[in-house]
């Protein structure tokens, strides 16, 4: 029917064609046909990569009303809106009536006949989407390099855009690179020199940044501080109940940046007349949030979307089982890669193999199920005894950031705890969910640096923040503040707490770091710490390893169940005080993660014994530590 270029460059043409063929007959099913058409087209090989991505192509290079894709995160859901699904226009000169399709469009042609009985009203839902919060730079780069849909600014189009005031373009600097400002209160102190090689490249493509100005101009409501990128109003036409807040999506939609949208908004603010009841109602704040200028927050009319199980560009998008070739090849390598990773982590963790082992387990943990209120599979690690010299924890974070697709570093300074917004809160004036740092997609690595804790007092907000962190760790849920009530949103976040002594937050597992390096040499050792370079094949192997291990299925055979039970009974016999149900819980999680890290999808006796063994080692170490500092509880 249409060539590739047509459906990407002019998707509305396809829609119109099908609409016209239906002759406004609602039973003709043209709407399903449209959805199916795009779905089929996108199934084609390379079709997905041919679609330009809003994540890595600056907005002003994209053609309005063309098909674009956007890898995003549902930050907020607005109220459903009614629109004219089909309407009739009257040509003022010839009085000829024409049926028009209003679907996938924000604006209707002028000379709409509002009184036509042929008008069909329909409903759609708007989601406010932001780029995936905390996405690591390597992920963005990788996705960007894969995408072939890079649009070269066309000669006919670009100049007209450049005539626009320069300010606007700066505001929506859409460069894929996450840029961390050095003075950011939250970010680690010395981040950029670690992946500095990417920086120089970035300089040339990046427009001069005027972050501060844009922030005051329009708050794009990113969950994490220091984030950049375009946010988007995604209009969903079908089945919007299946979307959930905090979902990670790949959205294919028709880009709508019609300047009319912004003009309409502007005008309303100035002419809020007494006589028009509908206008005076919306506050300016609400107006700003729900109708931001399209040049800053483009609208995307969704034609196809896919929920992302992960945002790891090195792994196939689809469910693991369907990709047996990929799966079997990685599974066979798992054990070897794990050994390499263990060596590497031992190196990073100052020669402590046990801690390295636990770090691997932590990084592949995943809440795979919930039994009533109990999340299963979470494994929060408290790495205590971290050296405070040479900004060790920050280095550790940067290494983790290089390995996982999304992560966030939260230095638990008093200032951060008292001032940061961790829990999202509904702002009823602007009618939106003001995001907080705990609104992150699943499997984000949250790095809590407790070594930055200093003396002082937590105020009310601080206490709430600490409680929220505690809830997140214990129940993997965040209670969003809706002012009159709270609403619980389950999450799936890997929390790693680094601290000097035992953490003030709860954790599933505490391990005290035992550096094999004499304290005097730590600083020197740290400076020689090897950071994986971005391009090495080893680091990619690590990334795949961590991603795959997390998604594997797992089971326990009846036989092993029996022996686990026996073991537990025996352990209890020896010393009922030392082994509680909680310990069994933990051991089962450790055994599960240990098996998965070796690429085994069932628990075998060896893994169980090994899990028991490392748990014993860890416990003795914790006991020792208690003896050393008598003041530990």
């Amino acid at each position, binding site marked *: 029917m249409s060539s590739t270029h047509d459906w990407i460059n002019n998707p509305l043409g396809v829609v119109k064609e099908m609409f016209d063929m239906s002759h406004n007959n609602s039973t003709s099913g043209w709407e399903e046909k449209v959805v199916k058409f795009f779905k089929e087209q996108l199934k084609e090989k390379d079709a997905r990569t041919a679609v330009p991505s809003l994540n890595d192509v600056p907005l002003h290079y994209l053609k309005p009303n063309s098909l674009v894709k956007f890898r995003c995160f549902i930050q907020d859901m607005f109220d459903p809106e009614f*629109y004219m699904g089909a309407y009739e226009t009257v040509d003022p000169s010839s009085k000829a009536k024409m049926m028009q399709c209003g679907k996938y469009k924000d604006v209707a042609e002028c000379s709409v006949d509002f009184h036509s009985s042929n008008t069909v009203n329909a*409903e759609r839902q708007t989601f406010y989407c932001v780029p995936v919060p905390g996405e690591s730079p390597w992920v963005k780069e990788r996705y960007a390099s894969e995408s072939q849909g890079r649009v070269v600014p066309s000669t006919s189009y670009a100049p007209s855009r450049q005539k626009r005031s320069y300010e606007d373009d700066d505001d929506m600097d859409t460069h894929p690179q996450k840029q961390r400002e050095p003075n950011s209160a939250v970010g680690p102190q010395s981040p950029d020199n670690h992946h500095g090689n990417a920086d120089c490249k970035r300089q040339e493509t990046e427009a001069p940044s005027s972050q501060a100005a844009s922030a005051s101009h329009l708050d794009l409501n990113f969950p994490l501080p220091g984030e950049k990128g375009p946010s988007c109003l995604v209009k969903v036409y079908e089945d919007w109940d299946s979307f959930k807040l905090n979902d990670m999506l790949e959205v294919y939609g028709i880009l709508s940046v019609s300047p009319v949208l912004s003009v*309409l908004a502007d005008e309303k603010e100035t002419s809020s007349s007494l006589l028009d009841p509908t206008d005076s109602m919306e506050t300016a704040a609400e107006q700003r949030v729900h109708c931001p200028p399209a040049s800053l927050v483009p609208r995307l009319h969704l034609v196809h979307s896919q929920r992302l199980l992960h945002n790891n560009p090195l792994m196939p998008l689809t469910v693991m089982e369907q990709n047996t070739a990929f799966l079997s090849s990685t599974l066979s390598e798992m054990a070897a890669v794990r050994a390499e990773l263990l060596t590497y982590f031992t190196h990073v963790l100052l020669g402590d193999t046990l801690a390295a082992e636990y770090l691997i387990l932590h990084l592949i943990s995943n809440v795979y199920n919930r039994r009533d209120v109990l999340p299963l599979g979470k494994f929060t690690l408290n790495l205590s005894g971290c050296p405070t010299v040479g900004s060790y924890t920050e280095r550790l974070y940067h290494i983790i950031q290089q390995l996982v697709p999304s992560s966030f570093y939260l230095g638990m300074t008093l200032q951060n705890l008292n001032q940061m917004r961790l829990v999202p809160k509904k702002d009823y004036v602007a009618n939106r969910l003001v995001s907080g740092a705990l609104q992150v997609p699943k499997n984000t690595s949250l790095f809590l640096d407790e070594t930055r804790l200093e003396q002082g007092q937590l105020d009310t907000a601080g206490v709430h923040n600490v409680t929220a962190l505690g809830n997140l760790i214990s129940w993997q849920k965040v209670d969003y503040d809706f002012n009159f009530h709270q609403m619980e949103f389950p999450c799936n976040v890997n929390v790693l707490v680094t601290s000097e002594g035992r953490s003030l937050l709860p954790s599933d597992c505490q391990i005290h770091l035992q550096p094999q390096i004499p304290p005097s040499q730590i600083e020197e050792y740290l400076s020689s710490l090897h950071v994986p370079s971005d391009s090495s094949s080893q680091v990619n192997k690590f990334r795949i390893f961590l991603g795959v291990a997390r998604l594997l299925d797992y089971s326990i055979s009846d036989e092993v169940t029996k022996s686990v039970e026996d073991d537990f009974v025996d352990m209890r016999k020896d010393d009922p005080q030392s082994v509680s149900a909680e310990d069994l819980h933990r051991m089962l999680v450790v055994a599960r993660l240990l098996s998965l890290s070796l690429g085994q999808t069932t628990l075998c006796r060896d893994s169980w014994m090994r899990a028991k063994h490392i748990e014993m080692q860890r416990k003795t170490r914790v006991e020792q530590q208690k003896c050393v500092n008598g003041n530990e509880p």
Partner: protein
Amino acid sequence: MAMPTSPGTDLLSPAAPQDTSLLSSPRPSVLPPDVDMSSPLMYGTPIRGTPARQRPDLGSVRKAPQVDLQSEQPVSDATVGSEPSGGQRLVIWGTDVNVNICKEKFQRFVQRFVDPTSTEDENAGLDLNEPLYSQKLEEISVVGDPVLNVNCRHLQSFDAELYRQLVSYPQEVIPTFDMAINDLFFDRFPDSFLEYQIQVRPYNALKTRNMRSLNPEDIDQLITISGMVIRTSQLIPEMQEAFFQCSICGASARVEVDRGRIAEPAACRHCNVSHSMALIHNRSLFSDKQMVKIQESPEDMPAGQTPHTIVVYAHNDLVDKVQPGDRINITGIYRAVPMRANPLQSSVKSVYKTHIDVIHFRKTDEKRLHGLDEDAEQKLFTEDRVQSLKELSLKPDVYERLASALAPSIYEHEDIKKGILLQLFGGSRKDFSQTGRGHFRAEVNILLCGDPGTSKSQLLQYVYNLVPRGQYTSGKGSSAVGLTAYVMKDPETRQLVLQTGALVLSDNGICCIDEFDKMSDNTRSVLHEVMEQQTLSIAKQHVILALPVSVPHRVRPSPCPSRTVSVPHRVLPSPCPLCLFLRFDLIFLMLDPQDEAYDRRLAHHLVSLYYHGEEQMEEEFLDMSVLKDYIAYARTYISPRLSEEASQALIEAYVDMRKIGSGRGMVSAYPRQLESLIRLSEAHAKVRFSERVETIDVEEAKRLHREALKQSATDPRTGFVDISILTTGMSATARKRKEEVAQALKKMIQTKARTPAMKYQQLLEELRAQSETAVTKELFDEALRALADEDYLTVTGKTVRLLA
């Protein structure tokens, strides 16, 4: 001043309350002769001097066409007109409503409708066998509040066709009702004086919907939705009629607002000078209007989504009826306003703005004043659901099923789960206020104590998640005010506001208090009143200013919940909350049994937890939502009463309990325990969906009560159940022993030379030497304290002094 007014506007413009408003112009009371009497909705016609009040909630109904009805079809869909369709049958244009038939039908409804089974509170005091709405008319004539609320459910049961018309064409049908009711009213009470004509306000349209299910088909229909008010705007004066005056000749003109616009007269009609008309604000007519934002109630929301909001406009006397935070049911007309085409632009936004013009507000929490469970009212069960719940209730093992569905991830502790289940159902509400005893608590309180690591907290979390209005708080760090209410300065408005604490928030829910033992005594004392009387009193002298307004709301009868409290230590904290412990109906000990078979089962349970797929779990147990609905249904609709046999059984049970202890001088049961038994039996009957409490319910209550006692109040030395362990933290045998020691000590001191002061240590040693059984230091201390209480001696530091 005689004013040449256009006849149309004069007919249709609402008469302002003439005697009250100085701003409204005097107008001729005689209608101009050229009124088009064929207009079916003569809205605004004063009946016997009582002016009609405009109803902006009905929108453009007043804009009856000024076109010649016979010749031209009205164009606007919002316009009301009439069209002769077949002889004399007139219907309003665009609908199938015939005004006269509709009027007659409604009058018949008002005169004849009887609802003998009515339980609504607003019908209190009316004779249920008389026509309900006629009585209400009488009420109006006495009270003078010209509003008639009509329950749509009544209308539907009386005349389904009329109801259908009302829901489909509220904009036309409600004015018809208004006319009908006013005719009727002024026929019956010709002399009564009302400020304005009676307005009919239908509510409870059966099309009650969740906000989420509203769709374009509901536009312009009468709907009822429930939600929570999140924001109210300030009062907005909305112009209804503009008053223009010619600046040259002084002639005036009135122009009505038509869909938000006023057509300014281009020229003066009197002197024909163009552009001479100026708007006179003071003489224009305004009506009150307020924007209210409603948000979905948290219960209606699917998981993982954010609540929807909708804008509601309240008009006239409905303004300021609701405050943010109120939970309300609103009935109104759903509207969609298209974006207007702007001639300056080539395209328009193709989105409609939607809102609801409210006709009736109904606060859902107001009902609590009448002691009814209001949660249920909101929760609508579908037929299927009720059917399936009923089927479930018929199963013989429903009690066990439900108990095992509770917190399936927690292993065993069946009796505790059963106890919690009964707590969730609660007893029946009884009101003895007429006999002076006030009302009895129906809620069951439970205390859980136990070894650390026996998943008490998890159980609490589960309960907290299960009930709609649960509160979870930790004893550690909670203060008395944190539980009740405190006054603080609002950072934004700088006003003193009353912040409610956990107990208030969990009203009608369950308040889960973790780490109860870590709570200070002071805080715990707050619980006394709450647990027994189910009320909360707050006294804060220094903030008298803020409180008189807020307190009455909080100190309502029965604002308080039943609760679970956990004490994570096996030893009950002895001296402090003696009477508090009695207020718990059930006290459970969660122990780590430390036996092999148990360990094995526990291990099996945990391991299977870790590898079973989600589907398997679903099959094994009842869904949490079924459980929720089951509980909600039972709490709402079932209120069992004691049967004769059951009362006998209860009496016997109580006598038996008293008997156990009486032989050995111990009290093993208090009247409170009898009350507990009653509550538990009622709750058990509710589990079975039974309206009568039978003997089996009593048996189970007895068993559970005994089990709980056995766990927590068994005297470790004698093996007997002793309720006083709970009250004093000390068993009767221990108490006896203490007295013995005290007597021995006293005797010893008396036999000694009368030295006024003795060494503590020395005394202890001598007593030990003398006594046959071992005397521990604690026992000795207790004995000394007992003697000190008798004013026989005092202990200061290491010396013991005799008194007297």
